[in-house]
């Protein structure tokens, strides 16, 4: 097994391209090293992208946040402006693991590991974040929701990797939030996770909503029917109940050691209601 730590995006792409499927990108390594040690994967080449400045920085472009793919949970949590703009995304990233894991775990790794239960992904999808992807044919953009295609599977081509995430400028009366359910209080994998982003107009009418649910299907679901239940309403109890019902209808989970179909479906709705109320509260945070 070979280890390389390129310092530019181009070098990284060249290394990845030449080795095809036998290579793996190393970000924080909190998924990758566990998989290596347990013998789940045996790559010939490890490309550590942490030495590339672009993937480690948080920048503002025309008022929009661009967050490097390998910025860690701890760094996100300490970035006051980003936290104020996208509290739901940051709280999701900060839920990952523990203090030790937070020093390493990245948004890019959380997404590209392609676990249906990854905590940051529903929040990123709800936020409408866009991935900047670098590859042998140059750069391209893709919404976060288009990256994962199934458990452990991504739409990235050989040689491609995620460089950064671009967030839209949050509307004045918008708010996002994320909650997950785990049996313990930390160091656990989401049985269900829900991220919601809503935007109100001046009359408190919901003009936009994005409801994303994790761990209830092979990939994170963006539930259009739930969004539709909220848009045009004052986000009152009745419309929240409709939103919850749509979340439950969309769930297609599996029975496994982490939860049953019945339980996951039920709790997905419970969390959706709670998350929606937090997001609603946050629409008023700038007032």
């Amino acid at each position, binding site marked *: 097994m070979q280890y390389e730590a390129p310092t530019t995006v181009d070098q990284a792409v060249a290394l990845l391209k030449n080795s095809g499927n036998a290579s793996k990108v190393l970000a924080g390594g909190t998924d990758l090293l566990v998989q290596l040690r347990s013998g789940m994967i045996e790559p010939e080449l490890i490309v550590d992208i942490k030495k590339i400045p672009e993937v480690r920085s948080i920048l503002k472009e025309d008022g929009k946040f661009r967050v490097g793919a390998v910025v860690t949970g701890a760094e996100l949590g300490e970035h006051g402006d980003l936290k104020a703009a996208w509290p739901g995304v940051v709280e999701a990233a900060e839920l990952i693991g523990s203090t030790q894991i937070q020093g390493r775990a990245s948004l890019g790794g959380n997404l590209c590991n392609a676990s249906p239960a990854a905590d940051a992904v529903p929040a990123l999808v709800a936020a409408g974040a866009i991935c900047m992807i670098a590859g042998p044919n140059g750069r391209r953009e893709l919404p976060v929701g288009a990256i994962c295609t199934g458990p452990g599977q991504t739409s990235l081509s050989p040689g491609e990797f995620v460089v950064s995430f671009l967030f839209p400028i949050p509307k004045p009366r918008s708010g996002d939030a994320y909650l997950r*359910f785990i*049996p*313990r*209080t*930390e*160091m*656990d*994998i989401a*049985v269900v996770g829900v991220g919601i982003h809503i935007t109100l107009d001046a009359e408190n009418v919901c003009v936009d909503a994005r409801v994303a649910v994790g761990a209830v299907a092979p990939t994170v679901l963006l539930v259009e029917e739930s969004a539709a239940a909220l848009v045009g309403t004052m986000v009152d109890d009745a419309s929240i109940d409709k939103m919850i019902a749509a979340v439950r209808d969309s769930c297609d989970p599996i029975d*496994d*050691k*982490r*939860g*049953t179909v*019945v*339980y996951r479906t*039920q*709790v997905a709705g*419970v969390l959706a209601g709670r998350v929606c109320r937090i997001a609603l509260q946050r629409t008023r945070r700038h007032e």
Partner: protein
Amino acid sequence: MAIVTKRVSDEREAEEQNFNWVGTRAVRPDGVDKVTGRAKFGADLHLPNMLVGKMLRSPHAHARILSIDISSAEKLPGVKAIVTREDFSDLASEFVPAGEMMVNYRDITRNVMAREKVLYEGHALAAVAAVNAIVAREALALIQVDYEVLPHVLDVVEAMKPEAVLIQEDLLTDGADPPADKPSNIAKRVEFGHGDIETGFAKADVIVEREFNTRPVHQGYIEPHACVASVSEDGQAELWCSTQGHYVVRGHCARILGMDVAKLRVTASEIGGGFGGKTVVYLEPVALALSRKACQPVKMVMTREEVFKASGPASGANMRVKIGATRDGRITAGEAILHYQAGAFQGSPVPPGAQCAFAPYDLEHVRAVGFDVLVNRPKVAAYRAPGAPISEYAVESVVDEVAKKLNIDPIEFRLKNASREGTKASHGPKFGPIGLVETLEAAQAHDHYQSPLQPGQGRGVASGYWFNIGGQSSVTLNTSEDGTVALVVGTPDIGGSRASLGMMVAEELGVELDKVRPMIGDTSSLGYNFLTGGSRTTFATGKVAVDAARDLVSQLRERAAKIWDVPVGDILWHNGEALQKNGRGGPTETLSFRDLAESMGKTGGPLVGQASENVQGAAPSFGTHVVDVDVDRETGRVEILRYTVVQDAGKAIHPSYVEGQYQGGAVQGIGWALNEEYIYDSEGRLENAGFLDYRMPVCSDVPMIDTVIVEVPNPAHPYGVKGVGETPIVPPLAAISNAVANALGIRFSELPMSPPRVLAAIAAASSSK
């Protein structure tokens, strides 16, 4: 954190004022090494030419081994030895004690290396020693095993059915009445009690009878099993391992390998937790067999997955408990029928489970019947108070329900029925000075029990009992020429015992604590020592250490008598100094320990204090726990809001380590009650063999556990010590279940009370309304 000292005699109280070390919170001697990473655990020894040993384990829950072909693995360059069943001789059925449970040599030899069949997923059936881990793993993949896969059974109720697949084809139930004539998976039937329960139930105004189910749980020690074995060409052998009892390991290994016991020297490494699970052997005989074949040292270390799949859980169980009481709150009769999983070999802790079930109660009519049942899971090992948390969970749940039915406060109800000094225990003996009533009274008076609950919250109470044991210990005190002392004991330190033993010795000798260096000797340095288990070390090794110190003091007095040329009867030992009664004769007023140590070469030679005893008089410890919970009605998640442990310690030598035992037991009980369980697929393969999905509590799951140490001294120990390490895991299961019942009005009779189970019960209760 409080200490309540009860019924302490006047004499003892007077002495108490003068303790220099006993009862203080001194710094532990092993602390610096542990926080700096210097401490050497099982996997930390490296020897020249050391090989890596790896185990081949069964992928099947139950299968006959048709053949094992090691020929291509043997040819792999770098492979130095391979062992299978061919390398271990068969042993006859013979039970020997291993901690508080019995083990059978016929079974151990089959558990360390499968013979006729593999009996659970993860059962060892071959091992390789190679120059490195990569070669060892490659060799394992080259071993060809032909299996005839058999049906398997995991559930204790299923395993008892007549049509169940037989795990041991020739097993006849021991103790069955009438005697068993057909083999079954029921290895044993035991019964304890007295009186006539039918008479008792006839007098009852209320009777509650319920069935309970609990799951196996793992001890969850943080350090996986690990050892290094080195056997020389002439048959002399060294073994380094993480164990609760290196003498016991020595005995088992010598027997399994057909060696002279004295040829094998075992050194206990530092131990990263055991909780009973490190009282048996898994890797050790195999590493020795590999080393004997390769004539090179061999290290073996389990992965966490191997720990879960192949080392001892505590039993899962199915139980029925029936209790009757009069309207005024007197229990008239109690009955418990207990079915415990033994794993693949007989020997579940159902006998102690049956003995402990009703121990907190003074009953005229009581009966507890236990069945030891084989299933295709790893053989159970001891886990803190083996068997007791399970049976007492069932009994304490029913006791709570009876109290509720009678509208009597649960502590009041227990006080009305509590065992006291002189009570004839349900398992036979008459209790000596026990502290159950004192723990109940302290719990009742505690601010926790008096504080109001918020709406929706619930409070639960339960008591618990464990016997504790004494047994063989041997201790040496080697005096150095500068008046410092090496305290050598043979019971591994799993809970701060080096600190407590050192404190008792410093107290006796009257010297500063840092002049006593406690350490664990290897098996050739001391007489026989039984293992650290049964909460015996501070009690039994502690008593022997005190006697060794007294032996040394009497020699010091003799030396002083010699120097001063006076009768030894005229010499007193006080605060680390010899002095003469009435101050007559001699050139000096006093002779310090240091003076006498410096001159020992001229006064008779080395000063060595020794004691070796089979210590009797272990006293049981009772505890009472109070817990508050909140339940998220929409997700079924139970939150522990507040937790208080009240327990009798006899005498807390080092209160912090007593409190640590109370807190640790409570936390392990919280895991057992709420989330821990083994999840198997339909083939009998474990799906959650890791800490991610086998959910022990993490720090943020539990509040600070409050403790109250009650001290009702044990007359059989010089300072009054009772064992404290096991009782704390007994009450939590029922206490939490009772608290959940109080919060929700729903009684659970199945553990764990995991969120899906709780939510389903809430849904069922609301739909039936």
